[in-house]
């Protein structure tokens, strides 16, 4: 019967209660897990390094080598930075309002705020 399940699901999203195999959860949590690294790639000379993703590696050397294999297989970069994710401090999105609000009412910081006669030409 093709109406055995009345649950909608999509390709790439199969409900787990429908799973085959044994349903026991294997033991997760590995004391020897490799740390997570964030990867930044400079796509060509003259441009900034840009965040491209992350990966796990035992140390910085391996992180660079893995980043080479994972993120620059098609010549996407000429330089790679890696940093362990735990060293990144991020701003809190819940505080975005207070954090960025002070810039909102200072339109005089933009060149278009100033009206100049046409004779001045490009300035």
């Amino acid at each position: 019967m093709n109406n055995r399940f009345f649950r909608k699901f999509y390709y790439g999203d199969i409900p787990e209660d429908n799973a085959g195999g044994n349903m026991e959860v294997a033991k997760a949590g590995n004391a020897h897990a490799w740390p997570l690294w964030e990867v930044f790639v400079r796509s060509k000379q003259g441009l900034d390094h840009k965040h491209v993703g992350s990966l796990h590696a035992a140390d910085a050397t391996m992180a660079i080598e893995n980043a080479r294999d994972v993120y620059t297989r098609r010549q996407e970069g000429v330089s790679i930075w890696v940093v362990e994710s735990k060293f990144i401090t991020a701003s809190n999105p819940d505080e975005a309002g207070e954090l960025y609000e002070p810039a909102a009412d200072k339109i005089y910081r933009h060149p278009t705020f100033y009206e100049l006669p046409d004779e001045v030409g490009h300035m």
Partner: protein
Amino acid sequence: MSIQDLEKIFQDKIDNEIKIEPKDWMPEAYRKTNIRQISQHAHSEVVGMLPEGNWISRAPSLKRKAILIAKVQDEAGHGLYLYSSAETLGSSRDEMIAHLLSGKAKYSSIFNYPTLTWADMGAVGWLVDGAAILNQVMLCRTSYGPYARAMVRICKEESFHQRQGFESLLVLSRGTAEQKAMCQDAINRWWWPSLMMFGPKDSESTNSDQSMKWKIKRKTNDELRQQFVDMIAEQIKVLGMKLPDADLKWNEERKHYDFGEINWDEFWQVVKGNGPCNKQRLAARNKAHDDGEWVREAAIAYAEKKKQPKTQAA
């Protein structure tokens, strides 16, 4: 702020096409659905290496071998992009891998079919990757930022996969009678499982469609499947081959191809673990994981040793 307020802000963002980022507030069900979907997608990439790995040592030429290795390496990379994006939702890599290895987590059923001849490499690239691409192109616009970004990267690489598959079949289709027969045979075996990749028919669902409302998904199974049939039905003409469906016919009124009924019994059997290769695939993943254990441990031991300050000899 009340949960209702938070939910409203969240839904407003979605409605206004503002991406959700890892540290943003999100409903627990949104987080869970994304973790399940992204990790299943990642598992599919990883298990997807196995049917093709089968042919690396048997590729008919050095060129085809190099192409196949590059493609399989891409799949590993795609798995990694996806695991990383699921990790941003708070699921650990170890946990996801453990679920794959135990059989709890699912991956695309298509990879539980065997690759019997060299022509299967072409058919997998053209049909299986072709079907996957339609889904992935849609997912480039999914609402969760890290997932969407991983998809953009994957789509850029995936088009090589489909093109090399088609080109490989094209060579066979212009070859000897035996090669032509091999090409047709591979298409016959992969066509229906490829259609099943899109999942059950929309009409089988009675649930409200939360994934669409949250814009995790943006097209229904049937929409994507129809898009796929319309695309393949035209492309196969170039190969001079036939799709194994007597009901396949252009419908002038709908401006789409009609096609025959999918064998849903087979679909559910494979999903439930009874496909031709389910056990073999999981066993191969488990073996690879176990055999690699000492490498992972040695690497971390080496890293720890290097971290210790060097003691000066007197």
